[in-house]
């Protein structure tokens, strides 16, 4: 049988090299919510390959931390995942407490749980609301941003700041929850669930939204584990890994909550996992708030916990500690410690090596965004350009955490 030949000659069939369009998505593209650059090779509307470039807002946090006393590292952690800064702050406090072997009172643990779960709600709300915006549903975003505003008001009551919170201290909190905080939290817990369910009903079973997100940007459980995914993105792929359950910190073992998992790891599953986590977080906050133990809002570690301002003015002891702490004259024990908390994006780890000095000898942040964003080219390969945008938005890649 005669071999078939192309009418254009045999060279034509041999050359499989197709010409692709190169598209520069970013670094300042309005659809990417942050400074991300991707050089895409496009076959029409289909993405053939993607080449991410990161580091646009790299601020050398690990180097900076090597010259700062421990309490001055807290503001650095704010700027990692700035959508849920309190989790980063408190994770860092707990890392230092682990090194110091300070036991925090139950009350501090419960206060921290409340703050961290509020931060998780704020982070997930922004992620899911923005996913709505990227798929064309702007309404939900405007309502959910109001709710996030109320959470920021609560941070303000506790720490005085809203976005980069620098919340709490090593050893606990600077003051007990204020009456204003109690009022705002009670108000939030009473009215937020209904408004959230309203938002949920706008998107979850919305046919247009479902068509838009189901089977977009999927990843299998095996690949997700191999890529060291964490948090909602890993759970959406069907792996029930949650640091709060696996290695409980800050008395999370006292609370009963469900770890939601997805099946296909696509954008819809990531959305649904986050939605359910918001409900679970509310449950945890209710449980922690209603069972708030009595006690101090700080641990007993005068070497590291700033004394009260009144005492500084009246007692010599307090003045000495105040001076020593502020000037960073307190040495920490030498040691090597890894502590991780469940950040809004997954396992946020602090690997701290102390040589017994006043600053960390080496501090490495395990930043979940940085680790899972590398799977992005694999997830969007063969998808449409507009799918790439919502895949990134549903992965909740935060530029601050990505670039450190």
């Amino acid at each position, binding site marked *: 049988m005669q071999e078939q030949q192309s009418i254009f000659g045999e060279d034509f069939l041999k050359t499989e090299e197709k010409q692709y369009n190169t598209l520069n998505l970013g670094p300042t593209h309005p659809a990417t919510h942050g400074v991300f650059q991707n050089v895409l090779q496009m076959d029409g509307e289909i993405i053939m390959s993607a080449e991410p470039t990161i580091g646009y807002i790299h601020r050398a946090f690990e*180097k900076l931390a090597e010259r700062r006393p421990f309490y001055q590292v807290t503001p650095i952690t704010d700027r990692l995942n700035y959508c849920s800064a309190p989790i980063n702050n408190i994770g860092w406090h707990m890392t230092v407490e682990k090194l110091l072997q300070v036991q925090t009172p139950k009350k501090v643990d419960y206060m921290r749980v409340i703050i961290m779960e509020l931060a998780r709600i704020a982070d997930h709300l922004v992620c899911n609301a923005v996913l709505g915006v990227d798929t064309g549903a702007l309404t939900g975003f405007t309502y959910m941003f109001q709710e996030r505003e109320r959470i920021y008001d609560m941070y303000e009551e506790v720490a005085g700041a809203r976005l980069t919170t620098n919340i709490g201290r090593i050893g606990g909190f600077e003051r007990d929850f204020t009456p204003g905080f109690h009022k705002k939290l009670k108000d939030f817990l009473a009215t937020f669930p209904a408004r959230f369910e309203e938002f949920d009903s706008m998107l979850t079973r919305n046919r247009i939204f479902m068509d838009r997100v189901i089977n977009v940007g999927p990843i299998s459980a095996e690949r997700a584990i191999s890529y060291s995914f964490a948090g909602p993105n890993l759970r959406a792929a069907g792996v029930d890994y949650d640091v709060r359950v*696996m290695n409980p910190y800050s008395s999370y073992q006292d609370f009963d909550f469900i770890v939601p998992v997805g099946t296909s790891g696509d954008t819809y599953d990531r959305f649904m996992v986050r939605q359910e986590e918001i409900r679970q977080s509310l449950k945890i906050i209710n449980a922690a708030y209603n069972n708030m133990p009595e006690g101090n809002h700080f641990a007993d570690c005068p070497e590291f916990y700033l004394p009260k301002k009144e005492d500084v003015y009246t007692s010599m002891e307090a003045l000495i500690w105040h001076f020593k702490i502020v000037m960073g*004259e307190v040495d920490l024990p030498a040691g090597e410690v890894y502590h991780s908390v469940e950040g809004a994006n997954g396992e946020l*780890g602090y690997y701290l090596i102390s040589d017994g000095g006043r600053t960390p000898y080496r501090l490495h942040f395990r930043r979940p965004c940085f680790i899972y964003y590398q799977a992005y080219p694999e997830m969007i390969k063969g998808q449409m350009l507009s799918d790439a945008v919502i895949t990134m938005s549903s992965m909740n890649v935060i530029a601050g955490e990505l670039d450190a």
Partner: protein
Amino acid sequence: MALTHDTVLEQLRSRFPEAILHSELSFDFLNVEIQPAQNLEVLRFLRDELGFIYLTDLCAVHMPEQSGREIGVVYHLHNLEENYRFRVKAWLPEAEPVIATATTVWAGANWMERETYDFFGVRFEGHPDLRRILNVDHMEVFPLLKQFPLEDTTREDKDDRFFGR
């Protein structure tokens, strides 16, 4: 078989009698120091036979006073089923910091190794794309090495003594 510090160490010791150099416990976390030349075999064994399928973290640390083994590459591994975590370290000479890549074991090691290269100059042999990742491409130094001070040393207005340093 439940994994504990002892069982992990025993398994590693019996399988790689020469590659396991040292081990210690710090804050209830096992540290195992391995021979850098055999890192890939040890890591593969850990993933395939002891179930450490999850690479939590990969980074490096610079200890200039340890001559001949200044740069340590640190792997944090996690067995998700048993919920057991521990740390593997391999120390490399600063003059020739070369170690085999773990990208063939865990896909996620790719960017973590690029970051380690970017900041410490550790060359991961066999890495598919070992370029700088967070710093600019034309940077000439590896900034997290201890010989590079954070602040400008020629400045006289910032005397360390006044800052308790």
